């Protein structure tokens, strides 16, 4: 069980996470949804320890969260210039007994590991970062917008891989601003609003989610467009 209590965090004078209390079952895929700027990335950064919280606690199975037990995929991963995909992956150590055969994983994702990363497209870079995370084999994966930049086939492969990782007992937290991409994959979808976890849904509650989350927003957007289309 991952338990986050009274988590407050932000940047300089701006509080983004406003006292989050959040309990997550381990061994599941958890979706984290929210509008742009709602704090999804901030929450993952705080969990991973890149950003220091102002207060609050984070534990997994009664042990304080630490980097040794998790991997984090950034929205736009950055890579060192002038090295190949193979050289990048060779830096990561694998935890546990099982083997990671880079060439086979790369062929699944159609990734040319012997080419320089500088020549990769955005999607290929994202896939390489994902392989790095898969290789490290840590129990908790924090994935920030992993589907961004992936083509249709790679998105389906990623969904299948994440489901398999869940079967192996990994806990996965995945963010997206597209609810549909989460409902296909997640066991729970948590909606972040005003710096707190506002609601938690089951994936089959997509229509309820859409209704609750977007009714007010859609109304606001409609009114705004009306004003623009029919100026006084």
């Amino acid at each position, binding site marked *: 069980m991952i338990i986050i209590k009274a988590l407050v965090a932000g940047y300089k004078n701006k509080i983004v996470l406003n006292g989050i209390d959040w309990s997550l079952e381990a061994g599941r895929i958890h979706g984290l949804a929210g509008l742009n700027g709602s704090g999804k990335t901030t929450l993952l950064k705080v969990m991973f320890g890149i950003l220091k919280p102002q207060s609050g606690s984070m534990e997994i199975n009664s042990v304080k969260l630490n980097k040794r037990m998790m991997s984090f995929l950034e929205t736009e991963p950055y890579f060192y210039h002038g090295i190949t995909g193979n050289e*990048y992956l060779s830096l990561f150590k694998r935890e546990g007994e099982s083997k990671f055969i880079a060439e086979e994983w790369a062929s699944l994702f159609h990734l040319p590991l012997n080419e320089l990363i500088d020549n990769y497209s955005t999607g290929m870079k994202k896939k390489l970062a994902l392989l*790095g995370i898969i290789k490290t084999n840590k129990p908790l994966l924090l994935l920030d917008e992993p589907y961004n930049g992936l083509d249709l086939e790679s998105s389906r492969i990623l969904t299948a891989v994440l489901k398999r990782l869940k079967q192996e007992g990994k806990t996965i937290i995945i963010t997206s601003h597209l609810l549909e991409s989460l409902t296909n994959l997640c066991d729970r979808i948590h909606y972040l609003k005003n710096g707190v976890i506002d609601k938690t849904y089951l994936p089959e509650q997509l229509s309820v989610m859409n209704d609750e989350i977007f009714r007010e927003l859609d109304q606001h957007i409609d009114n705004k467009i009306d004003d623009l289309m029919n100026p006084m």
Partner: protein
Amino acid sequence: MQPIDFLRVRKSALIREIQALGFVYSLIVAAGIFFGLIFFYKLQDSQLHSVYSLAGVSILVAVLHFSRKDHQFIQLVSPHPFHIFFTEYLTLVLPLIILSVAQSGTPIFLLVLIPLLIISLLPVTGSRFIATGFTNKLIPDTNFEWKSGMRKTGGLLILLWLASFALTPVPFASLIALWFALLTVSSFYDDGEPWEMLEAYGMDAKQFLHHKIKVQLQTYLLPVTPVLLISGFIFPERWWVFLLFLIFSSINISVFVLSKYAVWRPAEVNRSASIVNAMCMIGLFLPFLLPLPVFVLIRNYRKAMLNLKPVLHDYH
């Protein structure tokens, strides 16, 4: 943009770098430049020495030309990149031309303009990462700085290394070639890796820095030691000079590593340490600057530990 605009930009950047260095370091740098210029002035006592220094300065400018990272930018903003390169190199070398002519009384050092012209005309294409398959197999997987660096300036480094071998019969000439190679290597440490790569080792700050220095030294010593051994064999009465070079160049490699991590920020290019690194390297030839690398080593070890501890604290 005109060449004069570029010189203005360079001037502002230099002022910023000096301000970032602080008073003590600025003083050391100024003293280093001053004594370096005096050393150069004294060296111009014969035509032969002027020719040697001409060759040295030309190689130095070539190293600078091939390792600079703004080729694409200059090609974008100027229709004649050659003008910009040549103006910059000329500005850099002008004080040396004046000193040489003043001391030697002959305009022989003016011939440096020819290599400057040629170097400025040499294109460095957008695809700077040339595959260097064989050499990169000799570099350990964890030494991504060298793998990447060899792809950028591997041709020049191999040339300098071969020159150092070829020059072993000439007293100390191989050391000069190795020094230029070391200067090229110093640019390998400008780019900060993303934190994923930093954390991939699963080590705390102290273990990480020790491991990093060990790997870099292993890679450096592999090609350099044979050259110094042969030099020592040819000039056995001067074995201690080659040993000193080995020790102090190794300290310099450690300084490069520690300077990088003293200011490391994920995925950022940082050249603020480059002046101090350059001073440490000049120390290899100016005895009064020899203690500087040791001082910087200790200082930057502390700074690197402080900088990395918050990132790697979970791995203790």
